[in-house]
């Protein structure tokens, strides 16, 4: 009873302080409280002297006026607060108790220096927020329990929302799904589209209900997000085929159709094939349709495409009425769609189109096993059409090791090798040199190292890709040459040494840093040192960064390199 009376007194005093203490004298409730306190004080006497004190103080408050009333009310309120504090108990947590539901572990790996940077990037506005988020994703520190709620809220951010939805929120997994679901509105705008993206990445087929609702009830933006989500995370899942087809049959929006075409990839029904073939002929969807048709499992896809190709470039009157460029472009898309499929029919058709339809035709010829056809494609390597170079190289490689080496090594002797087309040709050849490359290439490439030319940087990159450790010493020798190699060459050599992953390159790489402001060299050193993945680099990196002069942003690569090394090898 006393506790309740004191509580009531506290409430009434609060009311008076909000309304104005001058009202105390006329306050009926205060009077009732006072009388109750007096009565209790009489009952309990010395056992509870505070009751009598409070009653007297209440009397004073009621009989005072003006500033005195305010004084008495303030004093009484203070006293009541003290009594209530002394009486305070634990808030009720009664009732049946159950275990806290199991949850996946999310740690708190982010140290205080970075957690606030990332938190601010997620919760404030303006530009420049990408970097802390991007760093957080790369280092994994963004997956921190303390940042979870902020990451979920950041989906709604127009500047970073897309990155957060695709790269950040899915990292939290199922721990965030229920919350994001609760926020998702299928009739909403871009932010809800991003929520759907995140949920599909997390739940996969579990998000079907949301996708269905989005496709049925959402606006064009939402439908596009739903279809992109299917394309990114649920490709070929049978349940979604009829949904996508139905949406596309009614769709007018170019963006939604494009996303729908992406989402149809991997389905093999007649309806899907028809939809993709007709989308191939719509400008905004051609690229997506060609990609999806290239992966189509339908038994008749090749025949249909060849038929369409004939119609497009053959004697069809309608086709001839189209402008020549449009016809050629259309045919090229069809060829691109054909290229991933195998079949002699494809190569036979395409070989006659090498000169008129370029790269896509050459890609189709690659499906052939016929030496003559492959040779025809390989011959185009020394033409002027850059688009032909890569397929020509691949065609040459299919002619056997000796034939390939004989044909392709000639690129370094071509008279135009230092000009644009020649450099592109060299790049196309080197693109395909990898760890399985013919070792005869090394001799050719080392020659480039000894007699630098405009394609030497490409040659150095190729040496790295071939991956033969015998290249380490010559590369180091080239790096240490006097006079010093030019900046582009130095950068290329350093990068190649990184690819070769031989720790003996660490010191020569750091020794080669003469001017720490050379941006290209810095980028190469960063890439190489991280690729070398050796703790031996840490002391050199520390010493380097300790000596840097100038603004932090100028030396972003070196500082970033040190940060990554410390993260991996530091204490």
């Amino acid at each position, binding site marked *: 009873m006393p506790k309740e009376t004191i*509580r009531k007194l506290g409430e009434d005093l*609060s009311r008076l*302080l*909000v*309304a*104005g*203490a*001058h009202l105390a004298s006329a306050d009926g409730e205060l009077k009732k409280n006072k009388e109750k306190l007096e009565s209790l004080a009489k009952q309990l006497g010395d056992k509870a002297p505070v009751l009598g004190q409070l009653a007297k103080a209440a009397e004073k408050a009621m009989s005072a006026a003006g*500033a005195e*009333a*305010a*004084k008495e*009310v*303030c*004093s009484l*309120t*203070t006293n009541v*607060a*003290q009594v*209530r*504090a*002394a009486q*305070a*108990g*634990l*808030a*009720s*947590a*009664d*009732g*049946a*108790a*159950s*275990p*806290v*539901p*199991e*949850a*996946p*572990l*999310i*740690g*708190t790996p982010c*140290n*205080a*220096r970075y*957690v*606030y940077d990332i*938190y601010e990037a997620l919760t404030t506005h303006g530009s420049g927020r990408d970097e802390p988020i991007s760093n957080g994703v790369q280092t994994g520190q963004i997956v921190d*329990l*303390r940042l*979870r*709620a902020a990451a979920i809220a950041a989906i709604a951010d127009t500047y970073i929302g897309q990155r957060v939805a695709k790269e950040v929120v899915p990292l939290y997994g199922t*721990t965030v799904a229920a919350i994001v679901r609760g926020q998702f509105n299928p009739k909403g705008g871009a932010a809800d589209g991003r929520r759907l993206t995140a949920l599909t990445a997390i739940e996969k087929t579990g998000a079907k209900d949301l996708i269905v609702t989005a496709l049925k009830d959402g606006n064009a933006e939402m439908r596009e997000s739903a279809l992109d989500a299917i394309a990114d995370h649920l490709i070929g899942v049978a349940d979604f085929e009829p949904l996508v087809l139905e949406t596309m049959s009614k769709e007018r929006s170019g963006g939604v159709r494009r996303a729908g075409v992406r989402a149809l990839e991997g389905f093999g029904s007649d309806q899907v094939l028809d939809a993709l073939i007709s989308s191939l002929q719509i400008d905004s969807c051609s690229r997506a349709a060609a990609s999806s048709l290239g992966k189509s499992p339908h038994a008749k896809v090749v025949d249909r495409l060849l038929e369409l190709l004939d119609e497009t470039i053959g004697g069809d009157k309608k086709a001839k009425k189209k402008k020549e460029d449009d016809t050629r472009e259309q045919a090229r898309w069809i060829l691109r769609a054909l290229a991933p499929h195998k079949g002699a029919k494809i190569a036979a058709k395409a070989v006659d189109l090498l000169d008129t339809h370029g790269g896509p035709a050459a890609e189709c010829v690659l499906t052939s096993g016929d030496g003559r056809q492959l040779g025809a494609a390989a011959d185009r390597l020394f033409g002027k059409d850059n688009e032909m170079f890569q397929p020509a190289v691949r065609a040459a490689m299919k002619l056997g090791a000796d034939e390939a080496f004989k044909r392709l090594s000639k690129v370094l002797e071509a008279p135009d090798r230092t000009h644009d087309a020649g450099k592109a040709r060299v790049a196309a050849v080197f693109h395909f040199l990898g760890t399985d490359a013919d070792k005869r290439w090394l001799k050719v490439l080392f020659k480039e190292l000894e007699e630098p030319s405009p394609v030497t940087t490409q040659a150095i990159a190729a040496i790295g890709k071939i991956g033969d450790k015998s290249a380490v010493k010559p590369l180091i020798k080239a790096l240490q040459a006097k006079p010093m190699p030019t900046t582009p060459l130095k950068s290329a050599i350093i990068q190649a040494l990184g690819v070769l992953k031989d720790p003996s390159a660490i010191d020569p790489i750091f020794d080669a840093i003469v001017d720490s402001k050379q941006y290209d060299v810095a980028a190469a050193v960063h890439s190489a040192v991280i690729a070398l993945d050796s703790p031996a680099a840490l002391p050199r990196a520390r010493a380097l960064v*300790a*000596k*840097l*002069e*100038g603004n*932090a942003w100028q030396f972003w690569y070196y500082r970033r390199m040190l940060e990554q090394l410390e993260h991996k090898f530091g204490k």
Partner: protein
Amino acid sequence: MPLEVNEALVKAVAIKEKTIDDGRSLSKKGAYKNTFKTADGSLLWCECQGSTLYKLSVDVAGDKPLMRCTCPVKPPPCKHILGMMLHYIANSGSFKQAEPPADLMEKRGKAEVRAENASKPKKVDVKALEKKTKEQRDALDLLEKLVLDLASGGLGTVDDKKAKRLHEQSKQLTDAYLKGAAFAVRRLASLANVDAAEGVNDDERHRLMIRQLVRLWAIVRKGQKMLDEKLEEGETQNDSDAVVEELLGKDWKISELKEKGSVRANVELLELAFERYDDPIREERIELSHVVELSDGAVYADINMRPQAALDKTREKESFEDVVTVPEAAIYPGFVNRRVRWELLQAKPRPIAKGDWERLHKVALGEIAPALAKFKEQIKNPLAPDEAVFLLKVKDLVKVQAGIALIDEKGARLLMQDPPLARYKSTGNLELAAGAAGKGGPMPSPCSILVRFWLGLQDYGVRGQALALVVGDQRIRLGM
């Protein structure tokens, strides 16, 4: 014994890392000339070619380095000074031994006298102190009038306009050396503008304002009493007066705390939670480490307050990943969570060992009841903070109708909730962390929790906000 000039000293005295970088650059460029040192290495001096030729010196004979440079950048250390120290670290041999210039020795002498005088009991300028006390006393009368006006008019009438006027009036309190009181007035004024968007309704807002008004009234009453006694009898050593003094705005010096005997020797502190926030009332950034003393479980607050206007000129406080050992820690007057501070370079970090976690769990309170008793004792004082942080053992964490509850060894339950106007909401994080640790069952042992007790606005029920959970040797930081 002089301080050692090493990288740790450079880092400890530098305000910004960039200044260290700039200093290093000067060293590399060969900007330092005529570099000298004394035989014992306690005094370094040289010239540095900047936009003009600067003369600088670093004296490490005392407890703190004395750094001087003729460049216009203040306060020290500037890049020239840091660069010289780095130059010395890398090239000590290039510093010739020499007899120090007379002016530097004179300055050292003066510094020694100053240090000696600082350690002596201060001769008080009685008149000046009396004048200051009188100004404070008069300002408290002004504060009293302000509080009574608010009470008479009603807090419900405090609108934007009134709030602005209160803010203006608080400046008079600041001018009269009552900074703490000024902040309290501003806090009340700021509550007038809090709205539903911040998660409090009108009733809650008024209750918060009433709490603040009660605090202001207590400042008036106790402040008047203390200052009247001061004017009559002079300074007191009374601890509760020290609390009032601090609330009125006194800034304690470490030396003053040591003089009072308010120190602890050889403390080992383990940080469990770190909070950083911008206080618009104080116009400061607050960086706060909640640290636990491993020998007895006392929870201290290691706080750094930096003016917003000078964030780039003041050193940011780091969060401690390691255990920090402090030979002599000064403890501020206060309540449950006292502020702790130590001299420059005194703290020695060491990696956390497994045994440290065992010690932590051992010193955690096994029952909620003693923590509740301490909390109630604190909040009975209207001048005390209305929150307190404790380290408790976790017998279990469970879901109840009202949310999540901590259960102690005796089965008592503490409801875990975020307070109204919480800077950061951590209860959701607690649920996830508990779910991960318990895997849908009872919490594993040992398990301890750092929890901030707070009092419900309406029901005066005590609740807890989780700041950190420690399961075995895993520290999970829940707040920020």
